[in-house]
């Protein structure tokens, strides 16, 4: 046996631990869940678990609620973070440098701590309300236990995250791309549309899918700040397991949520795989 052949098994050995963990905590549970979703409590085949979610008004409302929340969070987070990333990339002021160092800070604050902190500010008897009372104004923001509260808290986490991705993308836009466009007589708006956007739009799609998929399965934030009804799909799932102890229905809902996320995954992979002509040979 020659040297090369002797070590053929080494790469497999290196992949094995990760592969084993993948099988154990990802693939097996998914298979198990899919199987369970088609079973009755007794173990016989049924479609009833799925039927419930397609006929129940509560489930349908929750789905609509989740989609609206996820899309709003995505749009707002992308808009704000794109503006922030543009500012960080093209402003050379001191403020921009300071913000450039601080903007990731929210990512380092434990989620639940941040959520309670935001709640203390925006709740009807929170900081905004009390501060205004000092001036004799009685104002109840009405943000908490509402979709607005969920979106607000999610923006706290998602803006820094997406700004980080978009900043990295914008760093590939050289100063001279923008300067030569200005030299050619181009307005800022046109530079943004024709020079910057084509170079970064793929990363915007990636950031958007990440945010969107995160919202489909969101739990902590909607649990603490969301309304009782309609609710986010994550809460609905939690109730199926912990309140109603209906594991088969929970499994069916899980599969449905998985299928929704699959859509996001397809968009993500497609935009990553698609290579523009100009990128070839780079």
């Amino acid at each position: 046996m020659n040297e090369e052949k002797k070590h053929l098994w080494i790469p497999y050995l290196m992949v094995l631990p990760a592969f084993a963990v993948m099988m154990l905590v990802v693939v097996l549970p998914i298979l198990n869940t899919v199987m369970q979703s088609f079973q009755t409590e007794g173990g016989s085949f049924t479609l009833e678990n799925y039927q419930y979610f397609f006929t129940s008004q509560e489930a349908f409302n929750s789905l609509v609620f989740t989609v609206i929340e996820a899309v709003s969070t995505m749009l707002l987070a992308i808009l704000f973070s794109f503006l922030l990333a543009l500012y960080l990339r093209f402003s050379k002021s001191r403020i921009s440098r300071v913000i450039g160092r601080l903007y990731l800070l929210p990512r380092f604050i434990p989620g639940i701590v941040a959520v309670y902190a935001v709640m203390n500010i925006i709740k009807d008897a929170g900081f905004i309300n009390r501060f205004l009372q000092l001036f004799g104004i009685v104002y109840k923001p009405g943000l908490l236990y509402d979709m607005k509260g969920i979106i607000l808290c999610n923006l706290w986490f998602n803006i820094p995250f997406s700004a980080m991705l978009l900043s990295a993308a914008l760093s590939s836009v050289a100063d001279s791309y923008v300067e030569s466009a200005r030299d050619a007589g181009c307005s800022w708006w046109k530079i943004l549309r024709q020079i910057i956007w084509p170079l970064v739009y793929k990363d915007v799609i990636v950031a958007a899918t990440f945010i969107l998929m995160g919202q489909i399965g969101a739990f902590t934030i909607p649990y603490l700040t969301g309304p009782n009804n309609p609710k986010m799909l994550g809460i609905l799932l939690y109730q199926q397991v912990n309140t109603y102890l209906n594991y088969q229905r929970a499994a069916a809902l899980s599969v449905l949520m998985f299928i929704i996320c699959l859509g996001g995954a397809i968009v993500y992979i497609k935009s990553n795989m698609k290579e523009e002509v100009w990128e070839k040979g780079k």
Partner: protein
Amino acid sequence: MSEKLVIKGLTKKFSKTDGVENINLTVKERELLTLLGPSGCGKTTILRAIGGFHKIDSGKILLDGKEIQNLPPEKRPTGMVFQSYNLWPHMTVYENMAFGLQIRKHSKAQMKEEINEMLKLVRMDGSEKKYPGQLSGGQQQRIAIARALVLKPSLLLLDEPFSALDAKIRGQMREELKRIQREAGLTVIFVTHDQEEAMAISDTIAVMRRGYMEQIGKPEEIYDNPKTRFVAEFIGEMNFLEEGGTSFAVRPEDITLIKQENGPYRILQMMSLGHYTQAIVVDNKGNEVKVFMEKDEARLFAADDCVACRFDRKQVFAA
């Protein structure tokens, strides 16, 4: 020749020590003027101020008799070519060239004709459909020059456009630029830190140091009669020597070696540099002197020979 660009008292400071102060400069019609100096001397600052990319603190910039110092870059009739990353990578050569023309609302037929003409001028016709990533560095810079020229700028600004290219291509591009300038009758300001490049292409050289103009003149004038020690050192090779308490400078080609037993210098090294030979001679105190000579002459000498030096042309600097 009439005056194309006049700069009066231009000051742009980034900090107390960084920037340019009270710059006065005149560029004539169809002239190629080079701003030459070491990095950080302010040459790019002046170029970017002319192009509108730096807001100046004070002074006036007159192009074709009109003050342009308060206009943004998009309103100035200047065209700029940068060191690198000039072309927009997601657009073809044609789209790159058409970009500015579209803003100026040229008709499609007119645009096509103008672009073809410009591509022919830079000898890149046939590359319309290629993307910048498919071109070599030298080809990209040709397109960048063509893209600037197709907008018919009154003044072309080049910010070290060839410094990212390798030596051979750089030499070719110099000749190309000279030809393009002649054929299109362009006025050009060229920024470089490469004195050889400046000597080769310029009609006029402005040597800069720490934000000031050290000397402005024709290449040969600057080479033959440098006003300051800095210019003498920066342009070409120069020996700085002392004889009888006075210091002076001599170009290596202005020294003649004479074979002499017990002469004051000893040849340390002979090095053939192609069409001429460089000799380094050393005196008994260890001071080295560089000498250039013709190939035929060099055959008469070898390392360790004792020689005397005749200085045919000495120059003296105040500081």
